[in-house]
């Protein structure tokens, strides 16, 4: 599985990670580990109500409690806190309510901050919350997407006059990329229509969010468990009106994010304001319960799809109508998440007519925003489920229907109906490899046998031939989507006099292994040892510019900036090396860290040049004494990893228990820098996607209270819930970046959810089932078998309903 690298070449080698040494010994720098002289602790009071007017807050008792330095309410911060930023206004007429960090007059979801205490210790701050008395006047809750946009619906934000935030439409006939979809549907030999529910998920990174603000220096320094130190700095400046150059943001060790830490949080803003007010460092660390209730959620869409096809299986049109739950407010990129899906419903298929319409809807729930895949898992789920449903309608093998419609390897580059140009791919190769590893034909035979003998345990095969767009994103594309920033990334190289190298990156790792991968890349480029490279990131002081890490962008965008900076180092070194060897720069070749005079054995190493530059005693005229270089890289295109995932699931028809018997993932992420890291990303991604299929759901009760507010109720899977995976790769290099690489961070999550649900439906389809709503709990699977033909809402929807639906002991007993 690992790619054999050439001797001396770092890229392609399964290097063990540099990052590990401190993480396996507990020498870690999580934000909550930070302790500063005079540091105070903040605790926040959150609304237990989903929708209510605040009629009175009495903090007087709290103010008298021991160790308490400050108690503030929304009224105290109203003039200073601004409105939390939304950087993605998807439409000119998009409705966007004010988003105060601390509620002033009204709360719009349960978990919203209504007051804060700063005290000497965390315990004293938490104790003092008891001394704050809040009176609420309840308002009607808005929980259901369809009811929210019905006539006469109760409104989350009455000032807006509607719960619709915006509607965003793409139509291939209007765009000139395809035909009119309604005609395709009207004239179709076959149409299939389905509605899928993308349940609400919670990112549930392992490290709860934490923030420390130190206002005692010339710059106010914020440490935060964030994916986006650079964006956070800018947004603090813009939200609070503090001068940008007076703010420094540091993301130290960050314990996972998955999009969940791609945010400017109320707690960051409140901590900043209170630290400034008190003139002392203040720390806030959320509890897990606070995190689950108030950190942004993901997914939560209602997807209505109509696919049109000919009897032979050729797809002729696809219509997608979405309702997307924004929750109570628009956070940093909330409105854009479902819109990212618009480019992915057509997936790997040649679809001649396509229409996408999404209506973003406010509810009185926790705001949604990016979660691993962000828009693309939803799209991939829906289209891959539809391909199975279409195959069933036509009586064809679902792989055959896919192959009939997918872009053939010789057709790349291929511009899709949704306007993206896929640079490369080979769906045939990935599928062939996956079928072979999976024993597709053998399992199909076993499935038929079990059907025939009426086995109580039925076997299903689920397919997902996915692609995704990653490397967010060419700036011009973001501009066309009204995104509030560019999609470039920054990198720099500092050549130290001893020949050691500091690499600065605007990417901000939180588990991805950038320190290792960037070292491998730079080691090859500059010909310096892997060990001689230090990667600096996550601090706006050392890494002054950046767009941070999300959307599988770090390697395909961030590392390209670093590479480009390294090229400049070589170019700067060249005239100096020529001067040192008394030759013309044109006669020099650079390889393996050494400049050689062409056709001779005269050479000088780049470390020697670095030392000569440091001394600067004898440089060519007009040459500055520095090799240091930086670069900003703006991608020309997304990258389009793809793959074929096959899942074999056994469903116990008597209990509804599902067991994953085999899972094969063949991914094509182009060239691979570090196969170990890639495999790890795939494993973790798979589990998050499988968890959506089988376990996880953020469930609200009828009063808008989150019922899955602890890790006992929100079912992040354990090792015992998961099988081992068979992973492999095919390699079709990207043609749009220097290394031929594609993103990998989200691939597993995007691909696996439909593979699992397709397998479950396939196992029990002969019993009249054509869908099981996620998560596919034993109760829901059983209910689907009993009721047939309908998605099974109702029983099993309660929190914890997913418990044990995947018992590795086996439903096969």
């Amino acid at each position, binding site marked *: 599985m690992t790619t054999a690298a050439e001797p001396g070449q770092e890229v392609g080698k399964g290097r063990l*990670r540099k990052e*590990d040494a401190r993480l*396996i010994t507990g020498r870690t720098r999580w934000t909550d580990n930070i302790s500063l002289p005079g540091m105070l602790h903040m605790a926040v009071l959150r609304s237990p109500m989903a929708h209510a007017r605040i009629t009175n807050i009495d903090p007087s008792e709290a103010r008298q409690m021991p160790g308490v330095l400050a108690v503030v309410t929304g009224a105290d911060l109203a003039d200073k806190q601004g409105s939390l930023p939304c950087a993605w206004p998807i439409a000119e007429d998009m409705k966007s309510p004010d988003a105060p960090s601390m509620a002033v007059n009204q709360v719009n979801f349960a978990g919203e901050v209504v007051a804060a205490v700063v005290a000497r210790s965390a315990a004293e701050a938490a104790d003092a919350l008891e001394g704050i008395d809040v009176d609420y006047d309840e308002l009607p809750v808005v929980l259901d997407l369809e009811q929210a946009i019905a006539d006469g619906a109760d409104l989350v934000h009455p000032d807006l006059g509607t719960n619709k935030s915006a509607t965003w439409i793409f139509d291939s006939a209007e765009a000139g990329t395809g035909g009119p979809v309604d005609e395709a549907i009207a004239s179709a030999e076959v149409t299939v229509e389905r509605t899928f529910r993308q349940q609400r998920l919670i990112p549930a990174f*392992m490290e*709860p969010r934490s923030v420390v603000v130190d206002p005692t220096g010339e710059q106010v320094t914020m440490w935060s468990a964030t994916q986006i130190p650079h964006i956070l700095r800018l947004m603090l400046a813009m939200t609070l009106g503090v001068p940008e150059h007076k703010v420094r943001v540091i993301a130290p060790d960050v314990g996972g994010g998955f999009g969940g830490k791609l945010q400017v949080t109320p707690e960051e803003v409140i901590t900043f304001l209170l630290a400034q007010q008190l003139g002392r460092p203040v720390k806030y660390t959320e509890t*897990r319960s606070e995190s689950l209730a108030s950190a942004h959620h993901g997914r939560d869409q209602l997807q209505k799809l109509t696919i049109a096809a000919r009897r032979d299986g050729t797809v002729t049109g696809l219509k997608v109508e979405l309702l997307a739950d924004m929750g109570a407010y628009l956070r940093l990129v909330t409105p854009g998440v479902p819109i990212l899906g618009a480019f992915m419903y057509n997936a790997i298929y040649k679809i001649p007519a396509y229409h996408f319409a999404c209506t973003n809807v406010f509810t009185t729930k926790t705001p949604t925003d990016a979660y691993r895949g962000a828009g693309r898992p939803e799209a991939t789920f829906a289209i891959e489920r539809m391909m199975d449903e279409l195959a069933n309608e036509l009586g064809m093998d679902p792989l055959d229907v896919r192959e009939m419609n997918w872009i053939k390897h010789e057709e790349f580059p291929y511009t899709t109906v949704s306007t993206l140009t896929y640079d490369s791919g080979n769906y045939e190769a990935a599928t062939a490899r996956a079928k072979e590893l999976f024993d597709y034909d053998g399992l199909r035979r076993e499935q038929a046998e079990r059907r025939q003998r009426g086995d109580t345990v039925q076997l299903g095969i689920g397919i997902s031939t996915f692609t995704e767009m990653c490397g967010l994103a060419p700036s011009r594309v973001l501009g066309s989507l009204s995104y509030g920033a560019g999609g470039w990334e920054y990198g720099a190289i500092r050549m130290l006099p001893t020949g050691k190298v500091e690499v600065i990156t605007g990417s901000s790792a939180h588990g991805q292994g950038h320190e290792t991968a960037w070292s491998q890349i730079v080691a090859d480029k500059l010909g310096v040892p892997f060990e001689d490279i230090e990667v600096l990131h996550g601090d706006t002081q050392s890494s002054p510019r950046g767009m941070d890490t999300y959307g599988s962008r770090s390697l395909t965008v961030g590392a390209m900036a670093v590479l480009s900076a390294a090229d400049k180092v070589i170019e700067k070194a060249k005239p100096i090396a020529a001067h040192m060897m008394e030759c013309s720069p044109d006669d020099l070749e650079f390889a393996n860290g050494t400049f050689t005079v062409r056709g001779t054995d005269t050479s000088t190493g780049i470390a020697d040049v670095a030392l000569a530059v440091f001394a600067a005693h004898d440089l060519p005229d007009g040459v500055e004494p520095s090799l240091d270089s930086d670069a900003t890289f703006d991608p020309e295109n997304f990258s389009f990893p793809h793959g074929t995932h096959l899942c074999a699931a056994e469903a116990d028809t008597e209990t509804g228990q599902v067991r994953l018997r085999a899972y094969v993932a063949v991914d094509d992420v182009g060239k691979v820098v570090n196969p170990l890291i890639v495999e790890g990303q795939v494993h973790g991604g798979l589990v998050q996607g499988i968890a959506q299929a089988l376990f996880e759901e953020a469930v609200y009760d009828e009063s808008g209270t989150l019922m899955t507010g602890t*890790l006992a109720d929100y079912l992040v899977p354990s090792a015992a819930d998961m099988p*081992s995976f068979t992973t492999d790769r095919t390699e079709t290099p990207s043609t749009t970046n220097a290394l031929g690489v594609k993103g990998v961070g989200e691939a597993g999550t995007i691909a696996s959810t439909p593979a699992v649900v397709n397998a479950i439906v396939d196992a029990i389809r002969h019993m009249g089932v054509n869908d099981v709503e996620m998560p596919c709990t034993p109760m829901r699977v059983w209910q689907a078998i009993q009721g047939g033909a309908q998605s099974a809402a109702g029983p099993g929807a309660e929190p914890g309903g997913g418990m044990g639906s995947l018992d590795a002991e086996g439903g096969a007993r």
Partner: protein
Amino acid sequence: MRITVTVDGTTYSDEVEPRTLLVQYLRERLGKVGTVVGCDTSNCGACTVHLDGHSVKSCSVLAVQADGCEVTTIEGLARDGQLHPVQRAFHDNHALQCGFCTPGMIMQAIDLLAEDSDPEEQAVREGIEGNLCRCTGYQNIVRAVRDAAHEMRPGAGPEAERVSEATMGTQAGVHRS
């Protein structure tokens, strides 16, 4: 209340509030921040340490309950610059990404291996069931634990981690090989 606790080989004597959790005592009083808090319902296992040689979730133990006990944290595993075999196996098998669950996961894995010196895959999965990881998908963690089992020799690791025949009887798996 005054408690006396030995943590990673050093003895401490402190006044603590009765409500103080062991993990709070470790982090806030002793500066043992290698041990982390991931939840508030003892589901995640990130705070796992050893109390008198057995793994406990230190968010579910009061500091006063540790009075007179010996505590080993992730910071006390490596001795004289030598990583514990389980630490090394986590590195060698790429069994961590963000690393937040890693201290607890390693402490739990060591406890598991003390009871079963050569666990099958399923036994590893069940043995670490109380420790959540959101990054790795567990596959490489399982591989690391089994790899460590094969690497470990009688008496491997620091003294505090060794399970004597006398206390564990025939269960003393680490001594079996």
